[in-house]
């Protein structure tokens, strides 16, 4: 069964090369990729995730405003009823930041995994495969949360 991932660059960031490579890599790995392109709003991510019943939402940000751009993102997803794995990757802080601090920041914002810009697409694919396998199915989750 092929699984759907929604991919895009958040905020007013226009760095497109990374997601172009990611789109190709995830497609080649057998995922259905919905590429929203650059300058995608939180709402557009949520809508696309709903519309395509996405298993994962992959957010990219390169230009250094990721933190502001992602404030409240997980509430927007939740409000739209999206329950997908969320990853963020790219160049997530302004300046020469230490990555561990950055990771903590974005984990707190609700992302399941945080990737730096040295990430090989293969690593993200491996991680997603793992995460999607260990996730409970819809019905299991219903039981747990009820």
């Amino acid at each position, binding site marked *: 069964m092929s699984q759907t991932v929604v991919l895009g*660059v958040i*905020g*007013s*960031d*226009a*760095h*497109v*090369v990374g997601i*172009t*490579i990611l789109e*190709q890599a995830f497609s080649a790995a057998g995922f259905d990729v919905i590429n929203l*392109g*650059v*300058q995608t709003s939180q709402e557009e991510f949520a809508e696309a995730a709903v519309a395509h019943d996405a298993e994962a939402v992959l957010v990219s940000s390169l*230009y*250094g*405003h990721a*933190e*502001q751009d992602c404030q409240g993102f997980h509430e927007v997803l939740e409000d739209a009823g999206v329950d997908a794995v969320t990853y963020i990757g790219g*160049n997530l*802080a*302004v*300046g*020469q*930041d230490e990555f561990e601090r950055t990771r903590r920041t974005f984990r707190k914002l609700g992302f399941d995994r945080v990737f730096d*810009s*040295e990430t090989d697409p293969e690593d993200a694919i491996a991680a997603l495969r793992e995460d999607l396998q260990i996730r409970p199915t819809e019905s299991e989750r219903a039981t747990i949360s009820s």
Partner: protein
Amino acid sequence: MIRDERIPADELRRIDEEIRSNWSTGDDVDFEDAVAYHESLPDSKRFADVLESADKPLLQPRAGVPRLDDQIELLEYLHREGKADLLPTTIDSYTRDNEYEKAQQGLEKARETGDDTLNGFPAVNHGVDGCRELIDSIDAPIEVRHGTPDARLLAAITFAGGFQSFEGGPISYNIPYTKRHGLEETIEKWQFVDRLAGAYTERGVRINREPFGPLTGTLVPPSIAIAIMIVEGQLAATQGVRSITLGYGQVGNVVQDVAALNALKKLGNEYLPDEVVVTTVFHEWMGGFPPDEARANGVIGLGGMTAAIAQPDKVITKSPQEFQGVPTKEANSAGLRTTRQVIDMAIEQKIDIDGIAEEQDLIERETRCLMDTIFEHGDGDVVQGTIEAFDSGALDVPFAPSDSAKGAVLPARDDDGRVRIFEWADLEMDDDIKEIHKARLSRRADTEGRKQSFRMVADDVDAISDGKLIGRPQSTGDV
């Protein structure tokens, strides 16, 4: 229908007033007062004059931080320690989106907490006085560098604030920088920017304009970049700009880069009106950098070497921290000094490389094809031609995130590392030229024993950050 025509004076005034009402600081702009301020500036701050009279490539870094005092300190540092000849002020991303309110919040946060969450200097929010304080503090010319599709208010404020150079253009700050802005819209907005620069020029204050040559920074074939530079130069000239710096981003193949810079200069002078002084700027490698400062210094070294051979009027330097994020001032200065050392050691040497004339000839022919198609698409009007040519895909930019460009053309390196076109899509080009590219790329495919595919393009995108020029398949490398 928008055309390549000069905005009438009354229309200029109307738009000027309109856009100045977009943010409170717009009120402080007064044209006469601004002209007087520019006239009061010493020779050392006159951008066009300093650039045009230099006898070797001048160096300029990128740099912008939110707070005024920090920006002054940063530029002073780059001038003193980096020995930058020309200084930049890079504008933050909110301002580029005309979100002055968000920029204001970022600026205030920066002022309160000292934490810089803005990625540049919000010049609109600093206003005319803030800009002048910056200009007054630094004894060198300063350029506004940004990436703003609608830069009208930014231009009005920074010109009045004493900046004498302004980067960007309707294509080069649209196609690579934004998804949703139509080309017609950005052309209209940049006609105002150029017209305003022209109004200063008429009064003897030559504002230098610099179209952004590297575009998406990623394997852009030289002729595409040059054609867009010429178009933006023409648009600016129509509005009265008289100092134009055409840009080009290094692709990493020395012969192709030198040929491209030669072609840029030659065609720029040929296509632009005689009254325009054309200069050129070479951007050190604008694509993905190696995640290692030592290797990044190698990339910068190759850039400096290329600049020493091609001798552009200006070089925009990179820092060894390019991969990581906005560089520290020390790293930024280091990039300047590494570049300076290479240029100064190599520039007096006679280094004539075989094949440059041939490659230049190819680039010129390609560029003329593109220029011809633009003129044809617009029935002789470059504005309509540009819009139509992008619309049809006859003109295109690889990796363009914009909805206004097909972004369907795909580049790949040939066996010598020169950037060729692998997927033409609808790009207009003579068949014999297409054959040349095809032959070069198939030679590479043979060398590598693999088919031409997007995989090759992806490998080329990563190659320099992985330490090579050409993205050879991992398997063939036996080292």
